[in-house]
């Protein structure tokens, strides 16, 4: 196995079941830096597009998850069984979000719920419409 940054040479320092010895504290520092980056992205992104901030922080989360899986869970050093075991799981995991998306995630029809009817009434009032004045006076939270 070729030596990589953060890894001690295999042999007498090899860990359990032949895992190369990993400098776990380096991984820990990397995870801390990535967590801090997430918070910085939140602070810097105040008032900017939630989609862009969301993509950035989720990308950072993916990097953090990769570090945990590769080094803490030793998947980097495991055999190919990991693909056989995890690939179907990940495919099946997408089933519920995929099933919900067409009906709940994306609407092709108008729907009336208290939140939208009140907003509509407030908008109506703001454009010179009549009552219900109370709805217009309601603070927007």
């Amino acid at each position, binding site marked *: 196995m070729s030596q990589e940054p953060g890894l001690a040479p295999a042999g007498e320092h090899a*860990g*359990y079941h032949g895992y190369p*010895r990993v400098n*776990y*504290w380096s*991984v*820990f520092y990397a*995870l*801390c830096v990535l*967590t801090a980056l*997430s*918070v910085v*992205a*939140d602070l810097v992104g105040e008032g900017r597009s*939630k989609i862009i*901030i*969301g993509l950035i*922080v*989720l990308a*950072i*989360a993916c990097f*953090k*998850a990769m570090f*945990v*899986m590769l080094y*803490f*869970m030793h998947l980097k050093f*495991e*055999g190919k*069984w*990991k693909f*056989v*075991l*995890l690939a*179907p*799981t*990940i495919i099946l*995991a*997408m089933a*519920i*979000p995929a099933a*919900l*998306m067409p009906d*709940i*995630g*994306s*609407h092709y029809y108008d729907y009336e*719920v*208290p*939140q*939208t*009817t*009140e*907003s509509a009434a407030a908008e109506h009032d703001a454009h010179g419409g009549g009552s219900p004045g*109370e*709805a217009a*006076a*309601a*603070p927007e*939270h």
Partner: protein
Amino acid sequence: MSHATDVHAHAPPLPHAPALKMGVPIPNGKLGMWLFLGTEIMFFTALIGTYIVLRLGSKGWPTNPDITHIRVWAGGTNTFVLITSSVFVVLAHEAMALRNYRRATNWIIATTALAFVFLGIKAYEYYGKYDHDILPHHVAESSEQALSKLAVELDAAIGLIALQQEETHLANEVLAKQGQGGVESLEKQLASVRANIAKLNPAVEAARPLRDGAKYRQISLAEAAEQLRRLKENPDVGRQFRSVHEPHPIKWGNTFASVYFTMTGFHALHVVIGMIMFAVIIWLGLANKLGPHHEVAVENCGLYWHFVDLVWIFLFPLIYII
């Protein structure tokens, strides 16, 4: 040495059939843990995926931390706590491989201590939600709902309705049992209930304008909030209304509360289960019973704990930042 022995010494080795090995080249316990983690991946992906779908499908979402009481510092601190605990548990596994069982036990104790810290911060966050009544099915999502909720909470704080129901029930029983035995006892109870109702009169009278105004929607939210503030400052009955929440609607607040408590609640439950596993290892370690045959068990506990950490790694940005 015989001739036959020499022949065997120089003969090519016989082709032996390879040892039959079924399954994957890892201990059965570890395979079981990975299969379990596979089901856990599906479970949490369903929860997180449902949250994303619901959020994409809503025309709005409460994101103001002053309203949702979501604290980035609390989530960030908990992320740091779980990452640190992940290092500790993998160091425990390493110590087990080096047969240093005392050190392994100490790392597991440190991991468990951090799990307590995580749950403490989570409890603080949950208390904030409870205190502001940001709970599924409790959040008013329009002005009308906020006023109705205020009227209901005022009634509950006064406690009159329960007593009135009891009074009606007792009065009916007294009427039904007229001329029979045991009526005196019922009449005593009825008199006691009526006396308690009379004691509530000051609170009823103090809250009546606000309660009626809210119930029949004759006042605005701002007026209701101001009247409630004054009612709570009333030196005689104000104490009774401390639990009544300021009326303000949080649009999509119930969906928000549902997904927040479902995701973080199940995650916290996994933390507690991890702590129970660690408690067993700590008990074995302190009793000097940890041995080489526990290496796979400690590794499995570590794998489980890293998964708990992984889930939080995604919950933190999804709940606290986006």
